[in-house]
């Protein structure tokens, strides 16, 4: 049996490290630990982990800065951990190379789900053949025929809605910041027009969700962006 993926934990608080250690080892992952940003950067370079859990509140460095440096060092998936109310830090980290985030306090299921998504993405190379069909929950998108189905029924999307959905599918399971979605769908000049995104996201939900006020497929990451349910 192949040994579990190596997860590097960069976290200064012993209690959190203890919890993460128990959780990750208990689920078959290998573990590397670092207490400071410096040590974390050294381990990321030396041990080549597949996933990095980075606490944004390290005492010895600015978390966003660490995320940027890590991204230059490694292709590993970077998941940042931060407290509620620090949404802007999360957005900054995500715009600077982090792949996803977790808000403290979080439970084991959330953590394991994020790691699974990160590992799945690592397994699909960027330059591989594009996927032809995407399915998640009731949603099925056939990229070859440009067809969107919900529970087997065809849904008519406008070109912009389709573009937005495609951008989310490319990152399925992962949070995508407002800025990045705006960039991908409307172009670089519209990066601050978040209301474009919100209006189209609402339309998309009304077409694809069973109950648009309780979205399951296209969830809101408050203050950060959106996430499409992983397949």
């Amino acid at each position: 049996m192949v040994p579990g993926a190596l997860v590097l934990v960069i976290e200064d608080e012993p209690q959190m490290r203890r919890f993460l250690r128990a959780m990750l080892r208990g689920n078959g992952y290998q573990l590397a630990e670092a207490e400071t940003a410096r040590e974390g950067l050294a381990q990321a370079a030396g041990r080549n982990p597949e996933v990095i859990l980075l606490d944004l509140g390290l005492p010895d460095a600015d978390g966003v800065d660490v995320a940027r440096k890590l991204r230059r060092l490694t292709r590993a998936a970077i998941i940042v951990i931060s407290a509620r109310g620090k949404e802007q830090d999360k957005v900054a980290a995500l715009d600077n190379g982090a792949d996803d985030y977790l808000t403290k306090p979080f439970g084991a299921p959330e953590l394991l789900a994020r790691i699974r998504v990160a590992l799945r993405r690592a397994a699909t190379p960027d330059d591989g053949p594009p996927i032809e069909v995407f399915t998640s929950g009731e949603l099925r998108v056939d990229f070859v025929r440009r067809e969107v189905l919900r529970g087997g029924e065809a849904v008519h999307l406008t070109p912009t809605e389709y573009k937005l959905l495609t951008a989310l599918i490319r990152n399925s399971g992962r949070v995508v910041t407002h800025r990045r979605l705006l960039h991908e769908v409307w172009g670089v000049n519209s990066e601050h027009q978040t209301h474009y995104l919100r209006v189209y996201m609402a339309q998309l939900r009304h077409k694809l969700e069973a109950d648009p006020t309780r979205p399951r497929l296209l969830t809101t990451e408050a203050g950060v962006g959106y996430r499409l349910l992983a397949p």
Partner: protein
Amino acid sequence: MLLLLGVVSAASWTRLGPALLASVVSIACFDFLFVPPYYTFAVRNTDYILTFGVMLAVAVAMSRLTGRVREEAADASERECRTTAAFALSRELADAPPERLVPIALAHIGAAVEIQPAMLPPDAVGGLDAIAVRIAAAWAVEHGLSAGAGTRHCAEADALVVPVRTAASRLGVLVFDAPAPRATPSRSARLTAEAMADQLAVALERAGLAGEHDRARAEVEAERLRTALLSSLSHDLRTPLAGIEGAASSLLQGADSLPAPVRRDLADAIVEESRRMTRLVSNLLDMVRVEAGALAVRKEWQPLEEALGVALLRLEDGLANHPVTVRLPEELPLVPIDGLLIEQVFINLLENAVRHTPAGTPVVVGAEAAPGGVIVAVSDRGPGIPAGSEQDVFRKFYRAATREGATGSSGLGLTICRGIIQAHGGRIWTEHETGGATFRFFLPFDGPPLPSPPPEAAG
């Protein structure tokens, strides 16, 4: 003498010109009728020339005198008007809330001067369009004196600028645009405007002082609440902690002997109590931010549905026993809100509804467009708000009698809601009604400019 009477009466009713004409005519009549040779204008005796001169001088003097009396009478009646207007203004200013002071004063001054002024704060003076008016306004702010049209300073400006100031502070200027060149406000109109501007200044300063007084009282209140907070907190924090410690130590002790369902129960209890503590702590942090005025509101135009959706999903477990119906009209406009904060308002209102209503009763969240904003309503079918407590429920640490078995409230949820809504420039309230409680809040359309509707992306 009779002729002189005519001159005087002419002078008292009219101006100098007609009075002079009247005196010349009467001198001519006198000459024609009474001065030898009679019935000609010729004068033989040079003494009469002197008489004519005296008569003319008397006529002029009389007309000057009566003219002044008339002017003074007019002045007096204008003064009276001014006093009446000033009195009316001061009476209205005395009863007005601080934010109404300026509109009231502007209306009164506009009526008295017959030109509607605009009030500009001192730092907005630089934004005036006409250069001459801008200079006049800057001069008026700096010197605390009127400037512009009809004054000695910057008279070439097309507007009269009157400062609103007290000895201590410069509060702004009133700008009266002259409707046409040369149609500048009269001197007495200017005096009226200046007097009323002073009244406004005094009222504004008084409101500022009253504000300070309120702040001092609020600080005392805050101190009292801090003490209450400590005692209430130690209880609220210890209860879940005791639960967590108890459950965790039982798990440790009976690791091998406890049956699986019991272990699961204990683990559930730990998670549940931890979440309760998390909620309490984040409520406290929110409260501190609201109190400290440190609530940074980042408004963006967005549909309400999204913030509500996040709240409904986060509360999913808590709402399991309370079906929530959402009624958002499709044509509901975008609102400028901070999504994270409004989400918190929804969470607190929904938790509040759950806490005070029996299991199984429905909760309805609705919204409708209102003039200048949107009104959102969260209604439950519980016992409702007792009459007379409609204001109290928003008070810090106010706790209504909760139904049996309900988790205790921190008494902060509604206070936080009010803080957040007020920081948005809105209002939250509840009214006594039968058949349940309804909390409503108004979110105004003020914030960044309304953006253009989103286009279809190209390509």
